[in-house]
């Protein structure tokens, strides 16, 4: 049945919404829907050509209806494709905003290297979109020299906080001297100095 494949894709898109990581890109399904659209377009053209140049839709309701149905099937398929890709693109954008480093997982051509769980199953075009959106956002962020736009979105509490080191993070330079962040040690530090490390999971903020 025409439209079944698109429905499958839409269902996959719905599933994507609730998942932590972006699931495998439906390469075959997308290709099949594109083929279906081409078939529908061909049918449409053949039927339309048969009517000759003087075709008046209002004169022949049956043919009009057939053309109409073909056209809305095409549009619906396109819409499902758009919805699926927009949703995935949005998830990719979210990762860019969250400061996820996907470059570590893919090389220049976007080929997935072994072991990466984040971008595994992505289509290479999605890797490219990730980089493209990253560049656009980086340029925008570049306009803001005084404020890190990807900084914390929770309101600032205390300037100084207690943190525990979860993973060795090396030395950091603060105005109160160098601190060696070795696993399981605990520090009273300026929150702004360690924000990044907390986000990356090196440090745990103690309340």
């Amino acid at each position, binding site marked *: 049945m025409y439209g079944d494949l698109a429905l499958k894709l839409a269902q996959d898109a719905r599933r994507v919404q609730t998942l932590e990581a972006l699931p495998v890109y439906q390469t075959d399904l997308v290709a099949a829907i594109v083929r279906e659209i081409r078939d529908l377009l061909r049918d449409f053209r053949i039927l339309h050509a048969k009517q000759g140049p003087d075709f008046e839709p209002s004169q022949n309701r049956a043919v009009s209806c057939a053309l109409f149905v073909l056209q809305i099937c095409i*549009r619906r398929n396109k819409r499902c494709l758009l919805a699926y890709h927009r949703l995935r693109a949005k998830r990719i954008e979210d990762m860019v*905003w969250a400061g996820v480093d996907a470059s570590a997982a893919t090389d220049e051509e976007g080929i997935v290297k072994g072991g990466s769980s984040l971008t595994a199953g992505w289509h290479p075009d999605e890797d490219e979109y990730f980089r493209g959106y990253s560049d656009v956002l980086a340029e925008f962020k570049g306009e803001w020299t005084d404020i890190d736009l990807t900084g914390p979105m929770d309101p600032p509490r205390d300037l100084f906080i207690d943190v525990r080191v979860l993973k060795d993070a090396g030395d950091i330079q603060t105005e109160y001297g160098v601190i060696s962040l070795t696993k399981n040690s605990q520090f009273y530090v300026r929150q702004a100095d360690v924000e990044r490390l907390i986000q990356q999971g090196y440090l745990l903020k103690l309340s």
Partner: protein
Amino acid sequence: MALPLKQIGTFLPSEISFLAENTSVSIVPRQALDVLELIGLNLPAMRPMRRVEVPLWVAIILKKQSRCNIIAPTWLSEDSLKAAYEAEASNMTRFSNKLPWEWIEVGELVLTSAPDDLACPPHIIRNLLRDIREIRQAKVRAGLKSLDPTYMQIDNVGAMELNEIRQFVTMTMNELRVLQNGRAEEEAEEEVEQYPGEDSDLEDTLETTEYSIPRDSSNFDDSLRSRSRSAAPLGERRPTSRAPAYEDDEGDEEEDLEMDESYLHTVKDNSSGQR
């Protein structure tokens, strides 16, 4: 995403609290500090035992370092809060005007940062605040029972109280509006042929889902849905039966469903473009 999900369509309680920290309080400094130029104000010069007004966030920092005492706002005293409770209890359809906009946040901030500066034991203040909160919550619940798609009036609501019902109220009223408009349109356009492919709005559905699922519904929100009993209305409301129409109609025309000849013409154009 540019804005975290939990911050879309609502504020975090910590954000409401953050805003309240900008309100002014009186402090009695324990040490001297010269005038300090900040971005959003100039802090006044401080001399020991000389009362000055500063933003609450400044007071909290100074208090933490034992450099000042905070003078609790007058409404945050045992007598005032008792009076406020009486006022709340005397009218179950309205909020009293005895409390400031940020009463919950400021109350909490002062209680936690300067419990020793209060004129009476902190637990008395805390209990009074809790009683007031509960009696006001009962009014909120009652009001939420009779939401309609026209408007709602909630004078003297507190910032935190408002934020707690924000998503529920706006989502419900938006939904009611859509339902009502749908009905109005159906009635108005009974003769117009309906377009069959209704589920094609998938993209829209997918994109707006984040608005329609309350992710961070607090216990309070839940209780609003399940435990509303009293039927007292919040503020004035009149029954309504029509879809709202506004005076300010600029740049926003209602698009009507037109779905016959014109559409087939575009179909025709599309196909001729192919050859």
